[in-house]
C-alpha cells in the first residue's frame, strides 16, 4: 500500500511517500503503530495522531478505517489553502 505524507509531516518523516505491504486488511491506527515502532523519527512524527488527518483514495477517513494493499493512504496536518 502506498502511503503519502504532506507538509510538516513530510518534513518530519523525511520522505513524501513509501510503500508497505498490507496482508488482507488493517486499521489505519494499527498501520501507524507499526510505523512508530520503526524508529525515533517515525515515533516523533506520529506523536499526535489526533492532530493529523487521514485520507484513503482521496476521501477523508478516521483512524478506525480499514485499508487494504491496493489503497492509497495519505496522512497530513489540517489543510491551510485558500
Amino acid at each position: 500500500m502506498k502511503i503519502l505524507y504532506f507538509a510538516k509531516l513530510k518534513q518530519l518523516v523525511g520522505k513524501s511517500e513509501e510503500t508497505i505491504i498490507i496482508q488482507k486488511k488493517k486499521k489505519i491506527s494499527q498501520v501507524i503503530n507499526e510505523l512508530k515502532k520503526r524508529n525515533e523519527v517515525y515515533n516523533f512524527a506520529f506523536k499526535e495522531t489526533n492532530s493529523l488527518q487521514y485520507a484513503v483514495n482521496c476521501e477523508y477517513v478516521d483512524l478506525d478505517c480499514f485499508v487494504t494493499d491496493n489503497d492509497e493512504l495519505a496522512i497530513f496536518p489540517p489543510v491551510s489553502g485558500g
Partner: protein
Amino acid sequence: MQILFLKKNFIESNFINKFSLNNKDSGAIFSFIGKARPKNQSNTILSIDIELYEKMALVQIKKIINKLMKKYLIDDYLVIHRYGKVKPGENIVLIVVAAKHRKESFRFGEGLMDWLKVKATFWKKENFADGSQWVNQKKTDKEFIDFNL
C-alpha cells in the same frame, strides 16, 4: 465549470472578463480573490510555499461543488488555486460564480470558500528572513466544519 491548479501567478481580470463574457445571460457574477499577505502579525513574509496533493484536491473540490449545486441554482463556476512559490500580493485563489440571482451566487461562492479552506489539500508555509513556518488551519475555519459536518 473549470478547476485549475496553477504554478505561475495569474491575472485575475483576464479570467473574470472571459468568464463574464461567456455568461452573458447570467444576471449575477460573484468573484473572490484570496491574495498572499505581506505580513503575519509583525513578521514580514518573503514568500509562501504552497504544497498540493492534486488528485485529492480535485476530488474534494468537485465534491464540494456538487453538494453546493444541489442547494443553489448557478449557471457556471471557475476555481483557480496556486501552488508552488507565491510572493506577497500575488493571487492564491480565485473563485468566480455566475447565477441568475445574486443571492445564489453569494451563497455558492462563500460556501465554496468555506469548504475549500477545510477540505482542499493545500498547505501553506510562510518564509521569513529568519526561517519558515507552516500555517495552521484557522480556528474559525475549523469551527465552521465542526458545525457543518
